[in-house]
């Protein structure tokens, strides 16, 4: 023990950092910040450290080559002791990190911590959020499977919409004319060198600012932030009611970090690593590409926006959103900090959370995607065929054979792109059915050229039988009046 102390003193006589470290660790913080609400920043840092360690471990085996990345992931999963566990830790760590960073941001926003004099801390935090999302996307690419391949295609298609330079942006993004070896290599460089380097730099700035400017005090309704008086008041608060961060205020951080790490490990053990999915072979097109969880909301937005609004939205909305976040401390840098006196801030958080949740849950079900094998895989429910005429049954056959089921459900199965057909006869008259089938419209292709008159007649005859037992099908009153 004494030897360790002596060695320690020998080093510190030269590097002279012990006093600084002690000062930093035991810097005074307001008593009320020793709280479970203040643990998310340190937890994000701990998860980042886990990501660095597991990332380096994965890089020992992973091959960043388009020809071999996928099989090296299989090797990691199958042939390396605990390889699957390290992959799972890294994958779940990524999900936890994005979640914790977002929770941290919401907490900081609701507690008014971005206000004077912590503007730069907030801006560094916004950049850290963007870098974290950048890590999530580039990491998904390194899991070089079908989803990663077509995800890159989506990224390239979005980039290509930038006016004037879109084509060049795609070339630079892909590192060549197609998604191939150079693409994976550059995403590897981004994921392993560029973005983590920036993350470490901005984490250092973020932490430095937390130490220099001090952690945000617990917001009290009525305690107004003013540029002229804030710093003096904060120091007065520290003097009156400050406690040293270490050892008085650190224990919540330590306990929460342990809980988070154990949760990640539990998810990794129970739920396992993410993929890889199918081989990244562009000629295997029997696939329905889907991004990772945190980008589902975007997937939903891209399918629900009107086509003409997509490009402006994709190019303008992110810039506006980021500019708003960065500008926030400059137009709302003073005033009330407490969320109890900031109803608009609370509403904004609720609105964003509800919107994000709704879009994400839609992204889980993807009702806009045709079910590509429904026409051959989902039979027409027997109750719709019992007691029907030969013509009507032939119509049911046409319905299946022309892939209508890929977009239309019958008896709860089939696509949800179009409306379910179980009660279609109540909604549309015979004429309207014929017109809809032949001419399409309302997001339905026109089938006029793909159906013979006999097939159309049979199909419409079948569709006219689809109404609840006690409810009459829709009919055209004027037609009945004139053609008895």
């Amino acid at each position: 023990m004494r030897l360790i102390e002596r060695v320690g003193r020998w080093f510190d006589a030269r590097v002279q950092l012990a006093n600084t470290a002690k000062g930093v660790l035991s810097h005074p913080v307001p008593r009320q910040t020793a709280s479970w609400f203040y643990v998310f920043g340190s937890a994000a840092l701990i998860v980042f450290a886990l990501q660095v360690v597991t990332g380096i471990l994965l890089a020992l085996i992973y091959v960043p080559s388009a020809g071999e990345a996928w099989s090296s992931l299989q090797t990691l999963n199958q042939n390396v002791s605990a390889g699957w566990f390290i992959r799972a830790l890294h994958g779940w760590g990524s999900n936890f990190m994005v979640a914790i960073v977002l929770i941290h941001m919401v907490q900081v926003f609701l507690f008014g911590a971005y206000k004077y004099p912590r503007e730069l801390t907030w801006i560094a935090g916004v950049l850290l959020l963007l870098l974290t999302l950048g890590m999530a996307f580039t990491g998904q690419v390194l899991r070089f499977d079908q989803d990663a391949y077509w995800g890159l295609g989506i990224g390239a298609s979005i980039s290509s919409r930038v006016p004037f330079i879109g084509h060049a942006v795609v070339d630079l993004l892909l590192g060549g004319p197609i998604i191939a070896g150079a693409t994976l290599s550059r995403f590897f460089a981004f994921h392993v060198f560029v973005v983590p380097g920036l993350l470490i730099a901005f984490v250092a700035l973020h932490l430095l600012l937390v130490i220099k400017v001090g952690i945000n005090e617990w917001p009290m309704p009525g305690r107004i932030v003013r540029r002229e008086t804030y710093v003096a008041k904060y120091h007065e608060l520290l003097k009156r009611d400050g406690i040293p961060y270490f050892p008085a205020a650190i224990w919540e951080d330590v306990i929460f970090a342990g809980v988070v790490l154990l949760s990640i490990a539990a998810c990794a053990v129970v739920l396992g690593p993410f993929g890889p999915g199918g081989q990244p072979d562009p000629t295997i097109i029997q696939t329905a590409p889907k991004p990772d969880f945190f980008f589902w909301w975007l997937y939903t937005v891209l399918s629900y926006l009107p086509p003409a609004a997509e490009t402006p939205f994709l190019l303008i909305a992110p810039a506006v959103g980021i500019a708003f976040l960065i500008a926030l401390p400059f137009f709302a840098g003073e005033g009330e900090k407490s969320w109890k006196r900031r109803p608009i801030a609370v509403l904004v958080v609720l609105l964003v959370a509800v919107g994000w949740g709704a879009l994400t849950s839609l992204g889980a079900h993807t009702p806009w995607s045709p079910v590509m094998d429904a026409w051959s895989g989902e039979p027409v429910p027997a109750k719709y065929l019992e007691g029907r005429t030969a013509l009507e049954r032939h119509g049911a056959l046409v319905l299946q054979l022309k892939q209508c089921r890929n977009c239309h459900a019958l008896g709860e199965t089939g696509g949800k792109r179009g409306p379910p057909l179980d009660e279609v006869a109540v909604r549309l008259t015979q004429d309207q059915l014929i017109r809809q089938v032949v001419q399409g419209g309302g997001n339905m292709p026109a089938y006029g050229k793909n159906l013979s008159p006999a097939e159309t007649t049979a199909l419409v005859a079948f569709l006219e039988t689809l109404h609840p037992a006690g409810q009459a099908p829709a009919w055209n009153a004027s037609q009945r009046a004139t053609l008895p």
Partner: protein
Amino acid sequence: MSSTERPTRRGVFITIGAILNAAATLAIGIPVLRYLFSPKIRERRPGYDSWVPLGPVSSFPIGETRFATFRNPVVAPSDGETAKVACWVRNIDGRQFQIFAINCAHLGCPVRWFPQSNLFMCPCHGGAYYADGSRASGPPERGLFEYRYKVEGDALFLEAGEMPTPGGALATLSVRRSSCA
């Protein structure tokens, strides 16, 4: 220090040092930029696109749309299976063809051909196209991308090399269309 004062020895050396470092920045920086932008510079000369054989015309029956694959003309050894590209070949009447990119014009997902309903459908956001590649429904703002093609002897060739994207070269290419719906 006034501007009329004679430059000091130290000042002269700092100026020389600054000039040397500026020269070094240019000498190193320009090649670095060229390296970073090589995917773009490469394209101007000699270009990515070239004629690629798709096989004999007889493997694409008249009136049908068939799946075809080829190796991208620009490849690197590390590309593996990603060097392969898929496309849809429509033989209209034995002389006229349409070769569609596999990538949906919306966001690049792989479209699938359904011969029963004569539609291309995209699994991602539900874009649909008619047999001639024109837009049928869904989020795409335009029809499928078409490659240039030529028939030499019995072989069908297409001009390819680059992933088709809404801002890419194929997007502005006007290829003869049939008058189908």
